[in-house]
């Protein structure tokens, strides 16, 4: 296997052009922390972007940061913290879950469109992705978006890059929106709550004016969190956080008495939720991440648990079900996808097989299968950027 290590945009373009001319696909790698995500690739070349790193422009008062695509996330977060800012979509670290090594990069987290518990309030990586420069599978350097927070000039190709898993272009430089870090954070815990009541509680809290920025349900507990606990997070100016924390505790006291977490304990809880720590280290288990209408979270978890041996928890107010099942057979794919479609086959949702052996990720669809019309459109979009299937071919699905 050849490893191509471009150091700038021209070299990146040439590296893709070489692969294109030879019709030999490349696997794109930033820090390599998420290589276990998606369908396994076997390509003749590795396109290593690690030298396309470093913060290039950062103006805290403009809320904008531009960096090389493979800039380590840790470096970005350190620079932002120095100015009291953050990536508001709370990028998770799935190395513990996937057993991955290497450093997560900004380009990688954008390309996979990952987001943590704050997704419900602040959006996902896609919502903070303002502009980029990259090389398409045509071997052409191009750019889209801009370096300001508000822009509608041309198609929003940032959205397309977010979640495309490197199948459309290699990102040389990215620009993201950054936001102030909250002055205070508090977590309100209600423990001993059953799944259905937990989802009702989270829906009520998310429909309240208290600007809840995290809503998770942990059947087995985690760290300082007791079992069967609903955790609600509020963030912002200190007087506001105190008010909203107390209001949540008071308004939902009938469900269960509230406890509070602050500081490191609160931060550790939300890190664990985002990183899916409750499902890490379970051994040979397949782990699914299922995005559904929030009100269906508990019902879906229980429907799957009736058919499979599961360990699960909920994030995003019930809208994100994390579930570990045995690797056996199809890793629960058929049962889970039937459950997502619901009894009448009309419900929607998206199940991703996040963690599984390469053999299982080759055997079942890693991302939710699409209806034929949408699948055909997605394939035409792929070929608009990468007509010869040079970049991460098949990473998301056959033909993408």
């Amino acid at each position: 296997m050849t490893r191509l290590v471009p150091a700038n945009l021209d070299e990146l373009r040439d590296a893709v052009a070489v692969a294109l001319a030879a019709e030999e696909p490349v696997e794109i790698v930033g820090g390599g922390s998420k290589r276990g995500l998606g369908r396994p690739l076997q390509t003749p070349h590795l396109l290593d972007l690690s030298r396309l790193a470093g913060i290039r422009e950062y103006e805290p008062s403009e809320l904008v940061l531009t960096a090389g695509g493979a800039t380590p996330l840790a470096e970005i977060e350190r620079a932002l913290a120095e100015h009291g800012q953050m990536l508001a979509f709370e990028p998770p670290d799935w190395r513990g879950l996937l057993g991955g090594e290497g450093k997560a990069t900004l380009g990688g987290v954008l390309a996979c469109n990952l987001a943590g518990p704050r997704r419900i309030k602040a959006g996902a990586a896609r919502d903070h992705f303002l502009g980029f420069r990259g090389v398409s599978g045509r071997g052409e350097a191009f750019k889209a978006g801009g370096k300001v927070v508000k822009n509608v000039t041309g198609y929003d190709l940032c959205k397309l890059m977010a979640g495309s898993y490197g199948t459309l272009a290699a990102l040389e430089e990215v620009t993201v929106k950054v936001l102030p870090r909250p002055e205070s954070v508090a977590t309100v815990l209600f423990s001993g709550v059953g799944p259905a009541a937990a989802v009702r509680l989270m829906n009520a809290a998310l429909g309240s004016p208290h600007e809840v920025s995290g809503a998770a349900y942990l059947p087995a507990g985690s760290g300082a969190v007791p079992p069967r606990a609903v955790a609600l997070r509020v963030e912002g100016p200190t007087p506001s956080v105190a008010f909203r924390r107390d209001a949540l505790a008071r308004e939902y006291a009938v469900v269960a008495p509230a406890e509070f977490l602050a500081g490191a304990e609160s931060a550790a809880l939300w890190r664990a939720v985002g990183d899916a720590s409750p499902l890490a280290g379970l051994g040979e288990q397949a782990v699914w991440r299922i995005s559904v209408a929030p009100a269906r979270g508990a019902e879906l978890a229980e429907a799957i648990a009736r058919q499979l041996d599961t360990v699960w928890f909920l994030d995003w107010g019930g809208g994100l079900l994390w579930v570990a099942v045995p690797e056996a057979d199809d890793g629960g794919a058929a049962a889970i996808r039937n459950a997502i479609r619901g009894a009448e086959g009309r419900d929607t949702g998206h199940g991703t097989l996040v963690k599984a052996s390469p053999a299982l990720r080759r055997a079942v669809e890693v991302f939710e299968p699409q209806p034929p019309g949408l699948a055909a459109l997605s394939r035409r979009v792929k070929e608009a950027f990468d007509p010869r299937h040079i970049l991460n071919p098949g990473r998301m699905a056959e033909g993408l």
Partner: protein
Amino acid sequence: MEMPLPDAGVLARREEIAAALRRIVPGEGVIVSEPERRAYESDGLTAYRQSPLVVVLPSTTDEVAAILRYCKAEGIKVVPRGAGTSLSGGALPLADGVLLGLGKFNRILDIDYDNRCVVAQPGVTNLGISQSVEAAGFYYAPDPSSQIACTIGGNVAENSGGVHCLKYGLTTNNILGLELVLTDGEVIRLGGKHLDSGGYDLAGVMTGSEGLLGVVTEVTVRILKKPPTARALLIGFSTTEDAGNCVAAVIGAGIIPGGMEMMDRPAIHAAEAFVQAGYPLDVEALLIVELDGPAAEVDHLIGKVEALARDNRAQSIRISRDEGERLAFWAGRKAAFPAVGRISPDYYCMDGTIPRARLSEVLAAIGELSKRHGLAVANVFHAGDGNLHPLILYDANKPGEIERAEAFGSDILRLCVEVGGVLTGEHGVGVEKRDLMGVMFDEIDLAQQQRLKCAFDPDGLLNPGKVFPQLHRCAELGRLHVHAGRLPHPDLPRF
């Protein structure tokens, strides 16, 4: 500004095409007579006018699909239209194109408080969505100033913003699902009531695609609970530089206000003369900062912003004491466009975004351009996100003024790009800024965008003549030039 040359063959077939469309949409849904078609000749950018070939007003997704299939089979262009409030000519008709109006798609299909979303047809107005959930204390956050008239389908096409988008996001950040129809009649459903959909984010690409990729027939939006309290500060400054510094200081202090708007002297005077909002007339810049949230938060932040304003040499500060006063602060800003319309026969609204730190410099340069072009200008500014709306005053009845206004506008937008900004923050490219796309993007960038269009609309029949300065055939765009095995950089590290 020139549109693609109409196809004489299609123009001659008007009656036949109308008859075919009547077979799909019976009754009054097809408009052929010249005076009735003229009602659709322009959108919010009234400088450009063109009667469409024929107007069709379907009311079901099946009808939209049948219309698009027919038009594709016959090679007829289609221009989709919501309420026609675009400020960039996005819905400008084509002489040889069918105007596809979505006004009959005016129903709210589902209100789901548990999942905090509303499913609406594209012709429902932006405000209509908020009103449908108002009784339960919810609202839909993006609030373009045309919200009473503009439709959610149009908002998706343009990725509309509004004064609250710094804190609550643009349309794209508030959309959960879409149903759309491609030119071949294929109905595609994207997303739903869940947050992440996986696969390529085609809903993200549809949002802001200005009607060039598909026709939206259903939209699922996120709704939010209304903040319990909102209060505003009205702060006057003797220089725009002080006002700009104050904005930077507020954001630097970690505060993201619900709204943060700036007006320059001509805009303040025009607004005050129009609505008597009580604005100070002896200042060069006026800032409205609105904080929303629980009372504990709003009171705390009002105090902080007030202190920052003093630190930045505010000349006057007023803080709203009640809802009436808060609305009065906003009345002038919200009426800024019609207020300018009162002092000038015509005005031309621009929409660039700049890095905020360059504001004073850009305003000074706009002042110079105003002298050079001999036309007055008033500036309103979404200060939080750097989105500048210079309003160029002109009189269309005076020979040459409209051309001067266009040239002035182009110079302003070039200036925005030069200082690191972009051509349009929320109004879209449309026909208005189409020929300036080359200022921001090179040919490769634009060709790549057009290849995306080819994936949706290979015949280029949907809203042609908008966004892209040059039309290319998809076959030509798809051609690949491979330099077989040649290594331009033989020194590229390989291991």
